[in-house]
C-alpha cells in the first residue's frame, strides 16, 4: 500500500490500453511503451487490450498494489468514458484520485489522426509525457463532504412546480413553494381544455392544487419572489420577499419551475387592429367562458412570430396541437363551421399527437400549408368579417377565405424575470432565453451547477405531460443528494496563501459565484461554493491564489513536457 509522500520521489505507474484494436491499429503501442519507460519516476508501463473490462480493472488494482506506485497515468480513451471508473479503482488500491491523470490517446490521437499513424504515435507519446510531468507536481487532495439539508426550494407554482413539490414532499422532504402570482396554478389557470384527452383543465389541475395545499411537508408562499440565494449546494440560504418584507429560508436543493410567457403579436396579421383577430390564448378564454358565438368560418394561422430567421428562431412545440385542439372544440360546438389551420410544418410528433390530428381531419378541419416566403395576409372584409388571403403551397393556388375569426398561434417565450432569476441563482440562459440545461441528451433537468434543477416550460416550450415528466425527473435528481444526506464536492477549489495576499479585494469582485469573503485584511475562499474556475487565481496581482490541482507549477510542467 502506498501513501503519497511528498518528501519522496514520485513513483508513477502507466497503464496503456489497446482498446481492442481501436488504439493499437493506428498507434505504434510498443513505441509509446518504450518512450514512457524513459520518463523519470516511472516504475512500470503496463499494456492491456481492454482496461475497462472486469479483468482489466482487476489487473489495475493488483498491479498498483504490487508495485507500490503512488501516482497513475491512464493512456487510453477519453476520461469522459471511464475516468470515474478508473479513479475509483485506484482509490481502492490506495491512490488518491487527484494523483490519477489521463492521456487521451484514443479520441485525440488514434481517431483524430487515423490517416497519419506516425504523427499520431508521436502525439500519443507527448500526451503521455505531459500527463506524467503534471503528475510529478501533483499533490493528494481531499474532497470536502457537505451535509445536505433535506429541504427543497421550488420557484414557481405552476403544474411543474407543484408536481415536483408533491413528489418530494411525499418522500418526506420539506418543500417551500414560491409563487409570484397571488395564487398557484400557473399557466393552466388560463386554459380551458386539454388536448389528447379533451378534459377540462380543472379536472387535472384542481386535485393537484388541493394536494399541494393540504400537504404537511409543503409550505406555499404566494405573491412572493426570490430576492437572494447565498450559500451552497446542500445548504442554500434563500431570501424571499413576501408581504412587503423579506424572509430567510434554508434549502438543500433548488428546483426552478418558473414557466414561460406568451408572445403577443401586435402589428402582425392585423392583431390589435382588426376586430376578429385573436390569439389562441384569448380564444381559449372565450371558449372557457362559453362566449363563442356561432361562426361560419374560422382561420388559424400557425408560427406567428416563431421559427423566424432572427428573433424567435425556435419552434414552440405545442402550438400546432393547441390549434388542432381549439379547432376541434369549435367544430364540436358548431359542426357546420369551416375551420382552417394554415401551417408551415405540422408538429404532431409521436403517436398520440398524430392520432389527434387524424381525428381533427375526420371532423373536417382543413389544413393549408404556407411557406415563410409567401405568408398569409389578413384584411378587414366588411360586416365584421376578416379576409384571409393565403397561397396554398400544396395546391399552388391563392385562396381567399372570408372568415369570422382569425386565431393566431403564437409561441411560448421566456419569462421576463428569467434574467434576474438566472443572475440570482447563477445559472445560465440559452440563446433562446430559456434556462440552459447541463446537457440536453442525458441531463435535461439539471444545470452545470450542482444542487439546482429545472423543469417545465422554464427550460423550453413543452406540453403539460412533458412538463409533468420533467417535474418528476427534477424531483428525482433533487431527491438523490437529500436521500444520500451528504455530497462530496470536487477538491479543485481556489486556495489563498495568506502570506502573499495584499488585501486588494480584486478577487471578491471577479468571483462569479461569490465564493470569496474578506476578513482581517485577507481574502478567504468558501470551498463549498468555489467551483475552481480559476478567475481569481489568474487575476491575483500578488499570485496569492492558486487552484488546487491546477497550480502553476503543474501546468508549467505539462507545457515543458510538451515542448521538450
Amino acid at each position, binding site marked *: 500500500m502506498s501513501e503519497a509522500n511528498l518528501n519522496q520521489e514520485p513513483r508513477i505507474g502507466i497503464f496503456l490500453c489497446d482498446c481492442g484494436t481501436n488504439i493499437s491499429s493506428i498507434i505504434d503501442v510498443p513505441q509509446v511503451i518504450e518512450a514512457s519507460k524513459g520518463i523519470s519516476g516511472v516504475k512500470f508501463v503496463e499494456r492491456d487490450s481492454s482496461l475497462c473490462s472486469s479483468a482489466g480493472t482487476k489487473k489495475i488494482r493488483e498491479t498498483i498494489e504490487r508495485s507500490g506506485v503512488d501516482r497513475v497515468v491512464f493512456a487510453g480513451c477519453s476520461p469522459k468514458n471511464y475516468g470515474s471508473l478508473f479513479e475509483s479503482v485506484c482509490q481502492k488500491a490506495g491512490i488518491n484520485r487527484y494523483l490519477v491523470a489521463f492521456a487521451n490517446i484514443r479520441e485525440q490521437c488514434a481517431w483524430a489522426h487515423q490517416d497519419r499513424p506516425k504523427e499520431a504515435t508521436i502525439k500519443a507519446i507527448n500526451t503521455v509525457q505531459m500527463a506524467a510531468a503534471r503528475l510529478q507536481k501533483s499533490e493528494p487532495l481531499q474532497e470536502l463532504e457537505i451535509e445536505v439539508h433535506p429541504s427543497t426550494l421550488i420557484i414557481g407554482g405552476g403544474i411543474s412546480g407543484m408536481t415536483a413539490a408533491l413528489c418530494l414532499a411525499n418522500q418526506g422532504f420539506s418543500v417551500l413553494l414560491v409563487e409570484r402570482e397571488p395564487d398557484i396554478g400557473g399557466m393552466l389557470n388560463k386554459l380551458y381544455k386539454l388536448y389528447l384527452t379533451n378534459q377540462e383543465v380543472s379536472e387535472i389541475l384542481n386535485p393537484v392544487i388541493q394536494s399541494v395545499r393540504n400537504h404537511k411537508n409543503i409550505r406555499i408562499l404566494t405573491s412572493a419572489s426570490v430576492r437572494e440565494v447565498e450559500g451552497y449546494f446542500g445548504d442554500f440560504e434563500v431570501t424571499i420577499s413576501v408581504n412587503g418584507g423579506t424572509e430567510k429560508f434554508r434549502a438543500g436543493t433548488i428546483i426552478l419551475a418558473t414557466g414561460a410567457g406568451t408572445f403577443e403579436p401586435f402589428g402582425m396579421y392585423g392583431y390589435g387592429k382588426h376586430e376578429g383577430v385573436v390569439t389562441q390564448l384569448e380564444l381559449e378564454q372565450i371558449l372557457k367562458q362559453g362566449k363563442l358565438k356561432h361562426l361560419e368560418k374560422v382561420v388559424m394561422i400557425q408560427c406567428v412570430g416563431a421559427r423566424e430567421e432572427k428573433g424567435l428562431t425556435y419552434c414552440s412545440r405545442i402550438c400546432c396541437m393547441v390549434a388542432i385542439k381549439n379547432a376541434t372544440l369549435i367544430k364540436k360546438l358548431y359542426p357546420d363551421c369551416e375551420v382552417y389551420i394554415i401551417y408551415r410544418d405540422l408538429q404532431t410528433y409521436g403517436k398520440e399527437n398524430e392520432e389527434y390530428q*387524424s381525428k381533427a381531419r*375526420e371532423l*373536417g378541419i382543413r389544413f393549408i400549408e404556407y411557406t415563410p416566403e409567401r405568408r398569409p395576409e389578413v384584411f378587414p372584409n366588411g360586416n365584421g368579417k376578416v379576409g384571409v388571403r393565403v397561397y396554398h403551397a*400544396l*395546391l399552388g*393556388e*391563392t*385562396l*381567399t377565405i*372570408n372568415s369570422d375569426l382569425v386565431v393566431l398561434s403564437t409561441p411560448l417565450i421566456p419569462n421576463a424575470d428569467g434574467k434576474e432569476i438566472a443572475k440570482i441563482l447563477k445559472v445560465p440562459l440559452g440563446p433562446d432565453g430559456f434556462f440552459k440545461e447541463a446537457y440536453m441528451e442525458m441531463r435535461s433537468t439539471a444545470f452545470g451547477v450542482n444542487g439546482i434543477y429545472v423543469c417545465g416550460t422554464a427550460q423550453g416550450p413543452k406540453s403539460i405531460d412533458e412538463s409533468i415528466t420533467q417535474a418528476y425527473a427534477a424531483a428525482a435528481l433533487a431527491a438523490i443528494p437529500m436521500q444520500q444526506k451528504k455530497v462530496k464536492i470536487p477538491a479543485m477549489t481556489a486556495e489563498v496563501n495568506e502570506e502573499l495576499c495584499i488585501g486588494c479585494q480584486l478577487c471578491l469582485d471577479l468571483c462569479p459565484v461569490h465564493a470569496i469573503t474578506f476578513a482581517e485584511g485577507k481574502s478567504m475562499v468558501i470551498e463549498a461554493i468555489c467551483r475552481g474556475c480559476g478567475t481569481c487565481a489568474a487575476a491575483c496581482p500578488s499570485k496569492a491564489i492558486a487552484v488546487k490541482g491546477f497550480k502553476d507549477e503543474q501546468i508549467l510542467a505539462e507545457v515543458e513536457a510538451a515542448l521538450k
Partner: protein
Amino acid sequence: MKTEITSISKELLQKSIDAEKLRYCYGCGTCTASCPVAKVIPESFNPRGLLQKIFFDLSKTLAEDELWLCAWCYSCYERCPQGIKTTEIFLLTRNLAVEKGYFPKQPTNLVKQILKSGRTLEVTPARDRKREALGLPKIGETVSEKALREIKIITEKSPTWRVRG
C-alpha cells in the same frame, strides 16, 4: 388566381366510405411522383393537386378536364401511404360531374357507342370481313341482341345515362 372556398360536397363523402379517407391526405406527393400521366404532361395533370382541389373546391373541379385524365393505372392507389383509394375517388368525382351535366366529349361518344353496339369500338361490316379473312370468327356489328337489350334495361334506370344524341 382567386378562389372562394365552398363547402365540400356531402354527397361525395357519403357516396363511399373510401372517399372519407381523402381527409387523411397530407399532400406528400407519392401519387404524383408515381403517376405516368403527370410524368409526361405535368402541366395538365397532377393527382395530388387534383385531390386537394376536390377537397377544397369540388364544384370548380367538376368542370375541369383534368378530372378525366387519370389513366386508371393504380400506381398511386398502390403506393399511397395513407391508403387513400385515389383512383376510386376520381371515379366518384366524375360521377358527380356527370350528374351536374358535365359530359366530356370523348367518353360520352364511347358510351354512346356502347349503348349502340355493346362495345366501345365500332365493328363495321368491313372490319368483320377482315376478321373472317384472318381466320377469326365473325362477330357482327353489335353484341348479341339479348345482351344489348339487357344493357338498355340497366342503363335506362340511371339518370346520368340519359346521354342525349
